[in-house]
């Protein structure tokens, strides 16, 4: 095994609970050096608990946390956060209000030579575009600037791994896009591994090398953004990224039969199943339409147009998105194509509600 394949951070069968509430039910996950992993899931799924356990802010009930081969938490071991050498960026940024920006960024460098601290701080501030704000206090900064100071501060001690708790949730949409790019660039430049907690699939898709989807204290799927998006393991994962049209089906001989047609269902046992169709799968301009439909309503949404359709053979109206410049008339009869890559067939779920 080469040194580069030793995980920067590895969780093994980590359990956690708050009183009677189980937060983590056996989570195992490895983050490789230089890799950015997003923990994605709804609130309460345990992703923040995992982050806080990595930081040393919580002690896991069971399981181990190992960083670069060094045990941080495990049976009889509990390294306090200050001795872990892990950087953390907090959701509210947690900038020290009584210290100026430069002192905030240099806070984790205590014990080093003054000149060295100044050099590191100056370098980081210029990299986040705040070279001239070193003497400002946190309350004088905008939200985006505070986010950058928090990032610079967490990176200043050159941690092997950076933890980010909902790093973009306090920013408005426009700023958010820019900050995702800046953050990714900064992480890549520094080469630090990172684990980011988010509930927003767009954050995860934009920043992460791999996404770990969490639900009810468990990781349900790990993979590259493409993998989890293209090949969701279950209905829940599929629905997390985009709205689904769910059609009950019956599997018979490897094919799922539905009112909307028949779909390949390799490997599924005969019996009830669910066909999930992403809205994007429907195509108004397909060369080979497979359904006939009638336009019920249409709404212009700027970058796209939403069209509500009544598909023949299917009782519920379906909202699909289309090119905003494409003229659509209410009442018109149209032919709909279907992109089969955006259709997933799942067997019956024992704990679909979880």
């Amino acid at each position: 095994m080469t040194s580069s394949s030793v995980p920067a951070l590895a969780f093994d069968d980590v359990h956690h609970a708050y009183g009677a509430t189980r937060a983590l039910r056996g989570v195992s996950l490895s983050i490789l050096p230089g890799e950015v992993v997003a923990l994605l899931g709804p609130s309460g799924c345990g992703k923040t608990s995992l982050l806080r356990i990595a930081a040393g802010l919580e002690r896991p009930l069971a399981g181990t946390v190992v960083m670069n081969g060094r045990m941080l938490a495990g049976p009889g071991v509990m390294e306090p956060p200050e001795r872990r050498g892990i950087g953390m960026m907090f959701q509210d940024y947690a900038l020290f209000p009584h210290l100026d920006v430069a002192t905030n960024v240099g806070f984790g460098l205590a014990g080093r030579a003054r000149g060295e601290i100044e050099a590191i701080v100056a370098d980081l501030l210029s990299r986040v575009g705040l070279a001239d704000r070193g003497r400002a206090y946190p309350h004088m900064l905008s939200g985006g600037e505070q986010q950058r100071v928090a990032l610079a501060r967490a990176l200043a001690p050159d941690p092997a791994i950076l933890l980010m708790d909902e790093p973009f949730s306090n920013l408005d949409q426009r700023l958010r896009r820019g900050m995702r790019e800046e953050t990714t660039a900064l992480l890549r430049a520094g080469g630090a591994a990172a684990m980011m907690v988010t509930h927003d699939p767009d954050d995860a898709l934009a920043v992460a090398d791999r996404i770990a989807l969490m639900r009810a204290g468990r990781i349900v799927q790990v993979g590259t953004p493409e993998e989890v998006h293209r090949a969701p393991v279950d209905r829940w994962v599929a629905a997390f990224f985009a709205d689904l049209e769910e059609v009950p089906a019956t599997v018979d001989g490897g094919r799922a039969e539905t009112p909307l047609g028949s779909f390949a269902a390799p490997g599924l046992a005969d019996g009830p199943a669910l066909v999930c169709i992403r809205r994007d799968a429907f195509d108004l301009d397909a060369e080979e339409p497979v359904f006939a439909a009638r336009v019920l309503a249409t709404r212009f949404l700027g970058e796209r147009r939403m069209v509500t359709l009544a598909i023949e053979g299917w009782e519920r109206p379906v909202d699909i998105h289309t090119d905003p410049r494409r003229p659509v008339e209410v009442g018109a009869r149209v032919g709909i194509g279907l992109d089969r890559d955006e259709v997933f067939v799942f067997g019956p779920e024992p704990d679909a509600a979880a």
Partner: protein
Amino acid sequence: MTSVVIADHGSGSTATGAPPPRVRRVGSTFDGFLGLGLVAGAAALAPVVALAVIAAGGDGGLWRHLFTSVVPRATWETSILVLGVAVFVMVVGTGTAWLVAVHDFPGRRLLEVLLLLPLAFPIYVLAYSWLDLLHPVGAFQTELRALLGIARPADLRLPDLRTLPGAVLIFGLGLYPYVYVAVRTVFLAQTAALVEAARMLGASRKRIFFRVALPLARPAIAAGTALAIMETLNDVGAAEFLSVNTLTAAVYSTWVNRGDLSGAAQIALAMLVFVSTLFLFERLGRGARGYAVVGRAVRPMNPIRVEGLAGFGLFALGALPAVLGFVVPALHLLRQAQERLAFAGFADEILVETLNTVSVAVAATLVALVVGLPMVSGRRLNPGSRLHTALLRISTIGYAVPGTVLAIGLLAVYGGVDAVIRAARGALGGAPSGLFLSASFAGLVIALTLRFFRLSASKIETGLERISPSLDQSARTLGRSPFAVMWEIHLPLMTPTLAGAALLLFVDCMKELPATLLLRPMGFETLSTHLYGEAARGTYENGALAACLIVAFGLLPIILMTRIGRRATIPAAEGAPS
């Protein structure tokens, strides 16, 4: 870029649905914070334990005497006094709060501040001042006789202040502001919308008061009244001046006049039972009514404008308790002090006593803050640690223990510690003699710290709550130990809080009488013990001057409070058991 999936999805070793193991959080291990907490907790518990021990060692016959003659009578008089004071402060405190919160009349702003001023008077100073003023040869009666043309004091018989009703009046005048402040806060901030809604529904002012405002203010009334009762039980000087045999006075005189420590401890224990019962009732009474009025929109009530003669009438009515509780006694003290200064000049003893008072109060304030910050910070930095929380709670019990009771317990503790030190010195070949904590400056400072530690802890707690916990966590991940977090994050961010707490602690320590009286070093006089001495002897030489100084110091936190504005809370209210 690798995309190898190393994860092992959700294959837990624990079966789903199994009860989770016990939660352990970070840092419930032993640290300096815990060490300090153990010392503080032990120090706070020691006097209570000592009370029980020495009470048990008392003479059985004396015990019977105490509990057949002294205690029943003292309990009776204490109960009547407490009941009377409670009714007085509830009626006057709530009434004045309603007056200034709901009405607007000329002089309302002035009245709002005036009504706070009796807080500057410790009860023993208020009693001292009124007794001096109303003395048969005092200023008031002399003037009255001159006015009525009566020559001999014996020919003009006025009701004596030195009775239970007189004591209720004096205590009530000094203590109603506790209720006034708590209730006014509720009226001002929290009930505006409800009162307006009631008005829209056509309710009269009287109906609004009894059906809406009063029920909403009930928790605040209970809290303020509890504080007033605590102060009543704590008092040792005023009851004695006013010839009321309270339990506190019985504890004090059993020790000071009879030299019977175990007897004093027995009464003190009885008193602890009395206090605990009161708190239990107060808590039960409040617990049953869990009004969550707090947190509503803070919008001042639209006051009802009252002009002309009616407005002046309201002002006069509201001003009455403030005039009797502050203006008259303060003016009297000022005049007496001025006469004394003109006659004898500024006595050196007053200067020495002021220095003594300030040095004791400053020392106790510093200890309370220096111990308080690490204990409160330590608990916060060890979230989920029941031990840190328990130690903090235990170390604040001194606030609920009347000063005399605490002092009797500490007398025993100090005596024990001194005996141990003497024995150790003897064993090491030194002279097995001397006092170390008994009647020492340090012993007095410890007593005052224990007495007022709750004030320090609760102020620091309030201040810390305003600091986001993520700041702590952030500093931890940036390499700071819990102690460094306290030092580099909490302390600088808490400077204003600590300054405010220091002022309140200083003034409380400075005004303190019973513990100071019992534990001070030989010949060590503070302003309060000086005043007590002169009042007890019936001499009034420099008493007025000492009283003026005490009241002047006592005005400091009130000035601070009014500067904070209309949403002010009373200093002691935040230290109150809740």
